[in-house]
């Protein structure tokens, strides 16, 4: 038989969820995952982009060079980036409860996921902006652009493909985090995988969630790559 490798490890057994019942279990969970990741990514982009722009421009050589503020900002971002997500999630439970009034469910997952995602994305944006040739920014300045115009056209405008690449990486990381958030009852595919697959040894569900996650990540990556192509003239127009 020419079966995928996974079936060699995970063998469905009697007592597992019947195949016919899978959609009823997985579709709502998938919807929850998409909701969670969608909300988080919206927050991450809205907060992480300005933070990345600030980091880049406070750094030496930036538009508003300020070593002290940069050091503080950079330090805060590093803290956000240095904690393993599981630990971060547990550590900020009081804060999460303060913000959302609960410590379970999607709202409770969105808070730690955002807190982990924002500094991640900010660093990605900072990196993308750093790769924009200095002469481009100089040309904008010499053309009489205001700082905001420079940021919009020369920095973000030129870095769009790179930032989309970063966004793809970030989204995939957030899908992963959403599965971890599943353990605090946030729902979603991760929750199903843990409660059915891990705790009840339901191999059918386990296999199904794995396949869904792989396909989702592949799709996000594909979309991201397409968008990068579309926003880079040299890639879009080259045949």
């Amino acid at each position, binding site marked *: 038989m020419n079966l995928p490798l996974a079936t060699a490890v995970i063998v469905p057994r009697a007592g597992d969820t019947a195949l016919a019942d899978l959609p009823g279990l997985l579709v709502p969970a998938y919807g929850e995952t998409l909701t969670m990741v969608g909300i988080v990514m919206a927050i991450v982009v809205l907060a992480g982009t300005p933070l990345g722009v600030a980091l880049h421009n406070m750094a030496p050589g930036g538009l508003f060079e300020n070593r002290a503020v940069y050091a503080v900002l950079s330090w805060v971002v590093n803290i956000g980036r240095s904690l393993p997500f599981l630990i971060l999630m547990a550590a900020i439970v009081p804060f999460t409860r303060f913000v959302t009034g609960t410590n379970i469910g999607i709202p409770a997952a969105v808070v730690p996921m955002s807190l982990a995602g924002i500094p991640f994305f900010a660093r990605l944006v900072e990196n993308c902006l750093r790769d924009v040739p200095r*002469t481009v920014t*100089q040309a904008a300045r*010499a*053309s009489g652009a205001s700082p905001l115009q420079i940021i919009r056209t020369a920095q973000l405008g030129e870095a769009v493909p790179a930032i989309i690449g970063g966004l793809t990486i970030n989204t995939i990381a957030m899908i992963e985090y959403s599965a971890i958030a599943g353990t605090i009852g946030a729902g979603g595919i991760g929750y199903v995988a843990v409660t059915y697959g891990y705790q009840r040894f339901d191999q059918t569900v386990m296999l199904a969630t794995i396949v869904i996650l792989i396909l989702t990540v592949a799709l996000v990556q594909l979309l991201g790559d397409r968008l990068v192509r579309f926003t880079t*003239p*040299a890639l879009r127009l080259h045949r």
Partner: protein
Amino acid sequence: MIRLDQLTKVYGHGANAVTVLDKLDFAVDSGEIFAVVGPSGAGKSTLAQCINLLERPTSGSVVVNGEDLSSLPEKRLREARRRIGTVFQSASLFSRRTAAGNIAMPLEYLGVEPREIKARVGELLERVGLAHRANHYPFQLSGGQRQRVGIARALALRPSVLLSDEATSGLDPDTTRSVVSLLRELRDDLDLAVVFITHEMDTVLQVADSVARLEHGRIIESGRVVDLLTDHDSALGRALQPHLTPAVPEEGARLWEVTYDSHDVPHDWLQRISQELGEPASLLAATIQTINGVGTGRATVGLRSGSPALVQDAFARLGLRAEPGTLAGTGGHDTVRNDTAREDAPAPLEHAQ
């Protein structure tokens, strides 16, 4: 016109202070192209950034059409920058915008009406000979075409001063020539004062009316190109000439280094010298060219006889200056390397020697 008054730029403070530009003074009139040459580390890029007001000078001033721009407050400085167009090295175009989109940038920053922008951009594309490339992206353009877009962009706001910051560096000789002739054309048509910063001596000869040599943050020599080329004592004039290795003279012949020292040297000076001295003069090395309409040159001549005083007199009567020479060669870029690189090669390195 643009004038620099005692322009000084110091980086760092106290004991760590480094003076990059030291009391520079020069003026460029409308309709004049003024080249600044110098080895790397001489302060050329800092000078460029002070001229287009991206950097504020530590002291001294940049005066455009009588107004001191360098002391303006930040917001007015931004407006002042619009009066000076800058052509950068070729990597300065927005890669995600078309040629037209790039030229439109300064107009968009200013908030010009879209219809007006379109008209002006069309005009500029026409002006630099790229009307047929309006919707091409930078990656679809050749190095020379990219520089034309850069020039059009620099002219978008009708500046009276154009700064060219290594704009031809890294272009191949043919492309450099075409970019240079475009600059000269624009200077004449728009009566621009052009400051042309480069490390390529060859390009200076093609483009400049006047030239200054920057070294260690100071202008060590400057003048009109023609005057420097005909001045025997000018190191810069010598550096502007191509390096020649003379042919080996006949047995017993003495070498003479001959330079044009006047604007009215007859073209047939070699024959006249032969006649006057009563012996054939052998030409062993020479460059003769017209710079801004004036014939200039440098030659190595072999002469068998004649007392040194007699020979020098004969040359002097024709407006040439002659000095005993050696086989080491004439002129030459002895201090500034004279390199041109292919378009796809990295920009030529500058040599300080």
